């Protein structure tokens, strides 16, 4: 495998461990990518050399990968300009700031080197490879999510016109229809709850009764899939194949981790090339740059939504601040008076020491709070595998495995339950507040109603 590109780069860069390491690195990278991405070493090389077909392929590649990361639905049949627009937005979203990329034409005719740079930047910045591996993981266990991120509707920007009402604006909808819908909704929730409870029962049964049978000691018991696998092995041939393919992907990943310095050096040569060429056409670029960034006037829904949230939070916090201000001044003056009145007594009791102790205690108390205000780095997100571990077996297994190396991330149901309870309490409070507000408004309206008295339940 003789490559001209890396070879010349090696010549320029000087101390590279031979041009042969690069193909190995690139090959490992391609094999570690998800199969659906269809990245081949040739593609990367062609991208660097700015071959025409390479650009379209690279746009498609980035589209596929970014869609996987963002969890959206996609198909290869999506129009190229949609794909390009999406990729540009996604890169902007991650904070990629090279203006040349955003200026690339939307028919995908030029700019494969830019795309190559963006791709490498993503590799590092969002750990693209690791994320793809984690997302496409073959799941053999019983999994459930521990965070409620996807539920956070306050942050959602989904269009509200998905279920278009069948009535025109002049038509009237009977409020009883609403009531009926509401009742149905509640019914569905209850049914779902029953289903979940049933599912729990069965899960637990399987976990309990197959304890000790699994190959993996840490897990200890089978999952539902594995139970079914035992009964109907024929249906699961594909699963075994997927597992094997994934193992090969992981081995390629490990290889890549060994060889990656070469890749990054190669990318620097790409930057070098572009810098050289860029020097020649800089004056024109500067001019173009100014004219292509007049975006202040166009409205950006993302910014609007975020601004809305920020404003709401600011309002709440400012109200709180005012409330606190009042409270504190009031209390402080009262406190100071009291202290003055008993100044002599307090001096005898060595009040200063007590004061210091109290200060420390309060600091500790508020430390918890400030931890909550900062984003949690190690919070467990997403799907977790459910594992049953009865109390006595937990002590048996103990720390046998986890002492030596980094322990596998794990979270206990108790913690999750506690967090969920807090979350539930705060949501209940919010709901109650909203209902109170409605009640007040409705009371006002009731006074306007003629001759009717409303007695609330």
């Amino acid at each position, binding site marked *: 495998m003789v490559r001209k590109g890396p070879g010349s780069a090696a010549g320029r860069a000087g101390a590279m461990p031979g041009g042969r390491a690069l193909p190995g690195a690139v090959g490992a990278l391609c094999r570690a990518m998800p199969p659906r991405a269809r990245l081949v070493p040739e593609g990367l090389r062609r991208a660097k050399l700015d071959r025409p077909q390479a650009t379209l392929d690279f746009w498609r590649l980035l589209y596929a990968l970014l869609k996987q990361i963002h969890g959206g639905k996609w198909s290869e049949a999506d129009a190229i300009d949609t794909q390009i627009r999406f990729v540009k937005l996604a890169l902007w979203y991650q904070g990629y700031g090279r203006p040349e990329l955003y200026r690339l034409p939307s028919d995908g005719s030029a700019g494969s080197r830019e795309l190559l740079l963006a791709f490498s930047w993503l590799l590092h910045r969002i750990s693209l490879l690791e*994320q793809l591996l984690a997302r496409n993981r073959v799941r053999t266990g019983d999994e459930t999510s521990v965070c409620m991120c996807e539920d956070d509707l306050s942050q959602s920007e989904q269009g509200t016109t998905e279920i278009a009402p069948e009535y025109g604006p002049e038509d009237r909808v009977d409020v009883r229809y609403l009531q009926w819908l509401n009742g149905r909704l509640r019914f569905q929730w209850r049914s779902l709850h029953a289903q979940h409870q049933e599912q729990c029962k069965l899960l637990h049964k399987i976990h309990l009764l197959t304890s000790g049978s699994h190959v993996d000691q840490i897990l200890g018991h089978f999952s539902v899939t594995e139970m079914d696998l035992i009964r109907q092995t024929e249906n699961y041939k594909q699963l075994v194949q997927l597992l094997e393919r994934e193992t090969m992907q992981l081995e390629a990943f490990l290889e890549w981790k060994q060889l990656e310095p070469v890749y990054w050096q190669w990318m620097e040569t790409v930057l070098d090339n572009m810098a050289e060429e860029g020097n020649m056409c800089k004056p024109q670029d500067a001019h173009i740059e100014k004219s292509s960034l007049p975006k202040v006037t166009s409205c950006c829904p993302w910014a609007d939504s975020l601004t809305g949230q920020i404003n709401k939070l600011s309002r709440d916090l400012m109200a709180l601040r005012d409330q606190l201000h009042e409270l504190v001044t009031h209390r402080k003056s009262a406190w100071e008076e009291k202290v003055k009145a008993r100044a002599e007594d307090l001096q005898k009791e060595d009040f200063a020491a007590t004061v210091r102790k109290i200060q420390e205690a309060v600091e500790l108390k508020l430390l918890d709070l400030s931890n909550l205000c900062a984003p949690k780095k190690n919070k467990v997100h997403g799907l977790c595998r459910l594992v049953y571990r009865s109390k006595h077996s937990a002590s048996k297994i103990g720390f046998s495995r986890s002492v030596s190396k980094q322990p596998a991330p794990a979270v206990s149901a108790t913690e*999750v339950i506690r967090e969920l309870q807090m979350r539930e309490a705060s949501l209940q409070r919010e709901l109650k507040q909203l209902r109170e507000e409605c009640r007040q408004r409705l009371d006002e309206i009731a006074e306007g109603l003629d*001759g009717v008295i409303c007695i609330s339940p």
Partner: protein
Amino acid sequence: MGFAGWRRRWWRRWAAERSGGGSWSGWRPGAGASCGGECGPEPGRSPRDPPQPPGWGSRGCRERAGGVRQRRVLCVHPPCRDGQDDEQPETEASSKDGCESRPSPKELEELELLNRALEKALRVRKSISKTPLEAQVALAEKPTGEGSAFENASEQQVPVSGRDVPVSREARAVSKKPASMKKPSPYQLRAPYRTDPDVKKTQRRAPARCVSQGPRTAGKSSSKGAVSRQGKSHRPASSASDQGVCAATELQNAPGSSKSALKEQQSSIRDSSGEGNLVAAGRQLIDAGKKSCGSHGESSRKENPTAEGGSTSPRTVTIQQQGCQLKLPHPYRKAYSRNCRAWERSRLCQTSADAAAARKRFTERIQTTFCSPMPALSPVEIEEELKVLQDIPSLLSQYVEAEPADHPTLQREYESLLTLEGLQSTVSQCLRKLQLLQAAVESQKRLHPDCTGDVGSCCPACVPARGRACGGAGTLAVPLLWYSSFQELRDLFALKLQVSMLHQEIALQKLTMTELLPVLESEACPEASAAQLYRAIYTQLCEGGKRFPVLVRDELAD
């Protein structure tokens, strides 16, 4: 029992009086019949509404408590009243002068039909509670009752809104019909009859001994019977499906087992128009409730607790007996171990120093080529920070409220004061942070790649974050979630569902507030229905649709 008797008595009395040409008291057959037919909210109520709270008619029909008799009473809205305003609660008993002494033949017919239906219902109820095996075959009715059967099967607290319960009983009776059940008595089918709380209770206890220890709803046990029939007729050889009472738990195939039971019913017995809805609704539930547990239903059949009184086929592997000795098939085991080891190695693999340095060099170089005043935070970081701050106001409010107004000692007072001051500074910090975030949003907005054409087209792509938040930021290990008891698992699932439900409720509340309150405030509705509308909206917005206020007409008697 008394009810049917009363009905007949009344009927005879009316007939006698009619023939005698005299006036009769109270009961308006027309009203009764029309009400009995469908006990839903009545659209065409006479304008001279009785002094009862408006909407009572519909509410009464939906009352779960009390028997059918009570339901009837409240539903009555006589079409012709002639100045009788206060007869509602005392309709049958009183002997007021009716205006309508000659009900039309049509009304008579309807009344007769109603009578018959109600009698059948009572008969069925009695017979089923005594001998469940002697199903009322003769009462095979339309499968409209299956809808309610489905409902009944799922959750016992769910209100059956105005469905004709007798019909559902009949449907279930039919489902039992071909069942030559060899199951011992604990597994008797007891259709839940909503108006009789005692019956429900015994049903709840009965399944305690039941095979699958399924949810304690009678509906499920009823479908168990049906499933066993299904097993019998379709797979006589493998009694595994007999034991597959945990088809009740086949999440994939049926919400509750009634769906599978009903499917069989429908396919083998008759065509059902209700099936489509049922299946769709069921599937909805399944999709909503489904976790990534592959073929759950089939594995559940594996569970053959030996408590099952019935026969255990030698072919069935009972998990209880052999659970600990089960072995995964060899190819899978091999693939799994290799896969597991590869994951472990990948997780522990660290970026080498060379690689880290090379990455750093590249990233720094490329960053020098970015737009020069690069904002400090990328859009994704802005969103993350904002997310953290969402809960802060309520949290801080909690802290503030936790500080009492009065303190016993000087020390406590000082502590409280310090806490409040600390909270104050936290609030200021958060406000500053918000300002920074706002500035970052502005600067990022400037860099936003231009969308040619309409703004709407870029909207969907502006939401790339939904899936990303839970990506785990590249951690190469699926975290494990330990639970140590069955109760914990259940609590976990229940809480998650509760939180989701609350999220939705809050969103709906906000939406309905903005939509419905203006309607009331604008007074665009006709006077007569204003009160009802008010009541409905009050219920929806202030009580979550669960409880109703009482509206009392404020009229002074002249």
